[in-house]
């Protein structure tokens, strides 16, 4: 197990700086997920840790040792590559045990590990096949197997589930989580899939344009996003962003005054008496149908919401709705009988709503006082 620390990391390719001042701490045994859209620098960060790219400025520290000058093969790291990177001339068995053999493991250990990995990854019937004879998903599992058998200090995963079908992805996700719980090997996992990020990570790091936008536990990221980008990137469907005006006592949304639970003090993020334009962020999952509130009175209410589209999802029901000229989504109880074209009232907990600065996109409530 290893701890990893990135200190003020900058990375440039020629004149293009792709990582700007990355600071990250991964504790021993933690499972950290780097998540962000394509080109945000998450894979580059992973490659810097692996030693496959050189750091332009800053320090990569593994187990309290600066490893900037240490070759990748001396870092004792195992990695799953997004494009599998299997050895085409070796069969599945040889691919999986190659690293273990290089590390000088005994035949007994190699046999046991291979047996276990091939069982978990359902590769037992194809150990003698060459990568070219496997499907994309099978190759991806071989790449996973290559990592799982190793006694590495650190596991790095670069979008390892991106080529699997939905069922296998779900199964593998649980498997990765279970394996991590068993071995507690420090792991850093790159994905653009926020469901993977939320379900796998002890800590989620959201990146954009070479910067870390926010890091924290999955629920922290979900419930307290720093800014509009994090708020909309994490969560599916993404958080609704409604144009509104915030006053010390209420929010004005499409002419409706929605009272705040507590008056915002003057000194807190400077809400003038005449109000301030904001983006009101409410997750679709946090809406409730007024009909099923059972007398709960602490909820805020948006009235005269017009239902545009009803999509039953099985577990719940998703509505495309409109208030005034603004469209947004709401996920409601399956019992909701709203029909397209009808008008309903939607309730939400104001404590779960977010107020974002319209220019900087920052979450006003999370700004330092």
């Amino acid at each position, binding site marked *: 197990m290893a701890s990893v620390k990135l200190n003020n990391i900058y990375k440039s390719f020629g004149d293009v700086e792709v990582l700007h001042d990355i600071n990250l701490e991964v504790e021993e045994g933690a499972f950290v997920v780097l998540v962000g859209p394509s080109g945000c620098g998450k894979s580059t960060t992973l490659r810097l840790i692996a030693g496959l790219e050189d750091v332009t400025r800053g320090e990569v520290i593994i187990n309290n040792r600066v490893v900037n000058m240490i070759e*990748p093969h001396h870092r004792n790291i195992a990695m799953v590559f997004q494009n599998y990177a299997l050895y085409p*001339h070796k069969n599945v068995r040889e691919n999986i045990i190659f690293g273990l053999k290089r590390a000088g493991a005994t035949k007994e250990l190699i046999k046991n590990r291979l047996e276990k990995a091939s069982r978990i990854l359902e590769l037992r019937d194809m150990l003698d096949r060459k990568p070219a004879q496997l499907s994309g998903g099978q190759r991806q599992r071989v790449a996973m197997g290559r990592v799982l058998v190793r006694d590495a200090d650190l596991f790095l995963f670069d979008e390892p589930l991106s080529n699997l079908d939905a069922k296998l992805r779900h199964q593998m996700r649980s498997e990765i989580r279970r394996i991590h719980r068993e071995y507690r090997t420090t792991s850093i996992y790159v994905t653009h899939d926020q469901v993977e990020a939320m379900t796998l990570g002890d800590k989620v790091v959201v990146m954009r344009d070479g910067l870390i936008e926010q890091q924290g536990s999955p629920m922290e990221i979900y419930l307290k996003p720093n800014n509009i980008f994090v708020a909309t990137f994490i969560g599916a469907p993404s958080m609704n962003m409604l144009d509104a005006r915030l006053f010390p006592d209420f929010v004005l949304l499409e002419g409706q005054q929605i009272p705040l639970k507590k008056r915002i003090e003057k000194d807190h993020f400077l809400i003038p008496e005449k109000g301030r334009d904001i983006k009101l962020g409410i997750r679709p999952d946090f809406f409730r149908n007024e009909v099923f509130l059972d007398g709960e009175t602490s909820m805020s209410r948006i009235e005269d919401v017009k239902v545009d589209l009803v999509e039953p999802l099985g577990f719940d029901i998703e509505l495309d709705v409109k208030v005034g000229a603004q469209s947004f989504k709401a996920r409601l109880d399956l019992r909701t009988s709203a029909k397209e074209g009808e008008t309903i009232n939607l309730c939400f907990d104001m404590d779960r709503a977010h107020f974002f600065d319209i220019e900087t996109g920052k979450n006003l409530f999370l700004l330092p006082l």
Partner: protein
Amino acid sequence: MTNRRTIPQNLLLALAICAVLLFCLFPFVQILSTSLKHQIDWGNPSLIPIKVNLEAYKELLGIVKKEETQIPETIKRLLDNPLITEEKKEEILETYRSTSDVFPFLRYFLNSFLLSTSAASISLFLAVFGAYSFSRLRFKGRKIVQRGVLFVYMVGGVLLMVPLYQISVKIGLAKSIWGSLLSLLFIYIIQTLPVSLYMLGNYFRSIPYSIEEAAAMDGCSRLEAIYLIILPLSVPMLMTVFIYCFIIAWNEYLFASVFLRQFHDFYTIPLGLQSLFVSKNAIWDRIMSASMLTLLPVILCFTFAMRHLTGGLSEGGVKE
């Protein structure tokens, strides 16, 4: 797509292919035919010998024991003459024992084989590292070096022959056989290296770099990754390059004729063949069977290589 050629078109195509094949193969068939013909059959334009004659092959390969030359009775009687000194007698006998008409094919063959194999092996070894550095490493002056190497290939051998021999004489290599062989070896390596570098470099570029990165993650240093991953993946191209170098050295005449001129025992096959062509022993079946045997390693190389020259060894390793 389905085959949309009509029957006449197919016939035409087959005829064209046959014509090209005939054009390419005829000289070889002619060599084989002549090598198998008996002396009485040489004037016969037919490619099929009236009677198959393998004597020339047997002689060249040393399979048949050369018959002891009979000394004519008149000469024997002459030698009995007591007036002829012992020295003179020996001299006369020597003319009958002389083996100067025996063509040392196997020796030349071995000389050529050793020289070509050494040159091809060293060239391949150097090309692996050179090509790897061209294809994978980023260093200042890489492009200039890369182009410079190819430039060597553009200069004809004739232009370089005299200066190279002069250099060899001046540094004292040309006066000994080992020095001359070493010079020749260097020349063959330098001659074959540009194309070897080019071919291998292009092949290495086709192997995804992430496979090497995976090897690094599995604990391999760069050299180990080359040895354990890159080279096994490049076997077809390594063989191609080796055969290319081998054949260049095997067929080389120009430099060998200059550097080995004075060392008859170390003649290579092309040099030996040339000396055979112009000697008093230039008999058609012998010349042609020697040519045929010279072609043999080249044919064998290709036949062997064909089985292994299947591309796409790196298929399936990475997501396309």
